[in-house]
């Protein structure tokens, strides 16, 4: 746990202590850590193991099972292209392809400057406004491939300011 600073250790300990009344708190602890830091590296899993008594192997198994948990840091902007059926039949593949091409990353990857992560999402439940793209949780309705360049440009400008 050499890489964790004291503040992070204290925060993770506090998160683990939030759920001491729960029988099986692991998912809740991991969700909170993922939300707080954007990823759950091995050092953090070891600390959670120490605090909860759950073996690291089990924690690692859970972290790698669910797509919301990540072992690596994600970008400042997480672009989630919905590839649910309603979006797909309305051309969502062309949108994610365009993001992928313009950012030079594949779905699941993060750009080298740490600015963007591209994710393929399985249905946001926003089928009425397909194709939908979620950027850091905000859903953008009826996106077309032509708008992709403009979206990226705006986010770059926002990040620069």
């Amino acid at each position, binding site marked *: 746990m050499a890489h964790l600073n004291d503040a992070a250790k204290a925060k993770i300990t506090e998160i683990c202590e939030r759920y001491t009344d729960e029988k*099986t708190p692991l*998912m809740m602890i991991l969700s909170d850590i993922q939300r707080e830091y954007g990823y759950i590296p091995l050092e953090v899993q070891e600390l959670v193991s120490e605090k909860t008594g759950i073996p690291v192997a089990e924690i690692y198994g859970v972290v790698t*099972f669910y797509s*919301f948990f990540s072992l690596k840091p994600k970008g400042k902007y997480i672009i989630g292209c919905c590839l649910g*059926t309603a979006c797909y039949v309305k051309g969502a593949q062309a949108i994610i392809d365009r993001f992928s091409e313009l950012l030079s990353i594949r779905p699941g990857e993060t750009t080298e400057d740490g600015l963007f992560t591209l994710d393929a*999402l399985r249905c946001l439940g926003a089928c009425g406004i397909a194709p939908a793209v979620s950027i850091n949780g905000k859903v953008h309705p009826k996106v077309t491939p032509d708008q992709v360049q403009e979206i990226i440009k705006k986010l770059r400008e926002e990040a620069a300011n």
Partner: protein
Amino acid sequence: MIRSFEELESMKCSCTDALNAKYDGSDGKRHVVFCGGTGCLSSDSAAIREAFSAKLREKGLDDKVTVNQVGCFGFCSQGPFCKIFPEDTLYRMVKMEDIDEIIEKDIIGHEVVERLLYVDPETHQKVSRQDDINFYKKQVRVALHGCGAIDPENLNEAIGAGAFQGLARAIKIGREATIKEVLDSGLRGRGGAGFPTGRKWAFAAPGDGDKYIVCNGDEGDPGAFMDRSILEGNPVAVIEGMAIAAYAIGAENGYFYVRAEYPIAVNRLKIAIAQLEEAGLLGDNILGSGFNFRAHLRLGAGAFVCGEETALLNSIEGKRGMPRPRPPFPAVKGLWGRPTCVNNVETLATVPYILREGQEKFRTFGTEGSKGTKVFALGGKINNVGLVEVPMGTTLRELIYDIGGGIPGGKKFKAIQTGGPSGGCLTEKDLDTEIDFDTLKARGSMMGSGGAIVMDEDNCMVDVAKFYMEFICDESCGKCSPCRIGTKRMLEILTKITEGNGEMEDLDKLEEIASICQSNSLCALGQTAANPILSTLRQFRDEYIAHIVDKKCPAHVCKSLMHYNINKDKCIGCGLCERNCPVGAIYKTGYVAHGHKLPSRAINTDICIKCGLCMSNCKFGAITKD
């Protein structure tokens, strides 16, 4: 605090009066509501609502006009919505810049803003009231009760609309009679399989000790969003349904398992639980009856398989979301090894209606084998995309054409996929089928959670089958080999076919693997994984053969089997395609079409990545696919 049946009743009376005054204007005020569902919120309905309020304050109208949010109206493709009471005027596609006009003309001048009304695509008539719009005419709102009518973050409005009357009646008639009422209602689980809810409860009811009720809100079927909408629109109804189920089986704790992808639904549930606890409608000694019940919230973390009930239980227990072998069924050995009843959101949202209104009334809707109503999420190539609740037994034709408004752009209807990745597609010949659990199954599809994706002539059915298989293959948890390996092999074969390398014997192989996967997988995910392939093979075998033998994709979707062409005589040489091509595949030819001055363009097919930007940018229809 509400401590008794009498207190609930008197609270209900005053809340109903307030709600009615809002709808009929007897309080002398105007009431404006904005849709607060995910669809409309993504089109800035919250910001529009706030700006509307601010404008009213500025004009000193805020004591005569109230502004609130309500849950989803269901007609998402026309959002954001704004409705004004008591006139019941519905404005659609409302934008920031429309606020001034609505306030000046309607609020102050009592005149309808015609340009914001819904226009019937057939008659071209403007429609001002929601109930007069075809999309709503055939709908019956049981599970969607309150959605689009009440403020989901205001418990008083929920109580005014009848919340907790169902639980009150359940407690009055007793546990056994409650189970019998639900059994007699004929309610079948709305999550997919259609198992009778009353029987599920009866299995979990015997015996004492810790028991649990779990609400499955892990709505994974891509294209279905009724659970999200119900949780966003009337969370109190689902909590009440859960409390009734808990009372019936003798549980004191209930767990909501909701997808993390639904932040608004999660937040509204949290608010509703807190308000109910404060009001004494959750906690110890509810309504003074001695019944204790608490609701807890758990979030999913992005695994489709957790919609399978035993995988869901593992997930709550902090484990990998892998299914357990059944038996033992959860009703015997579920959460933490205790008897557990897992019910879907829509099922639980229906339960209060059955108890409040009586099972006889519920049974007046529906068919012999499937009573009541069902919510469908109409999506894909359909004019009126949105959420609709209709009686079981409504035909596909009514759903697609009368309610859904038909296929956009004059295109031809090809198929409708029901039941998501576990279901199948239905075609033209099935349009007059009365939809219920059994008829859909008999036609090789299934009800599933109620996703209904319409496809037109531009959709390739082999590509659709591949899309679903990609999804399932990605989401297979990997525990049992028929599913883990079978879905992978089927996806490989489908990929091979869509890339133009398929052989006829691949179709036999697909069917063979499909049958192994179907009969040997541990859970429903694997058992139903091959359904989209089998149903498209049955209905659209000629399309598979076109890909394999003719090396053509009839719908021009599969990239390896299609090309973009520029018609040199239609091309005026404007160069827009050339400027938009991301890979520089478009070049000038030496040819100038008759009547034009600039040389036409052509596509170098060796470089072309088939992104289609040239075609979407061409204003002269000179670019085609073949």
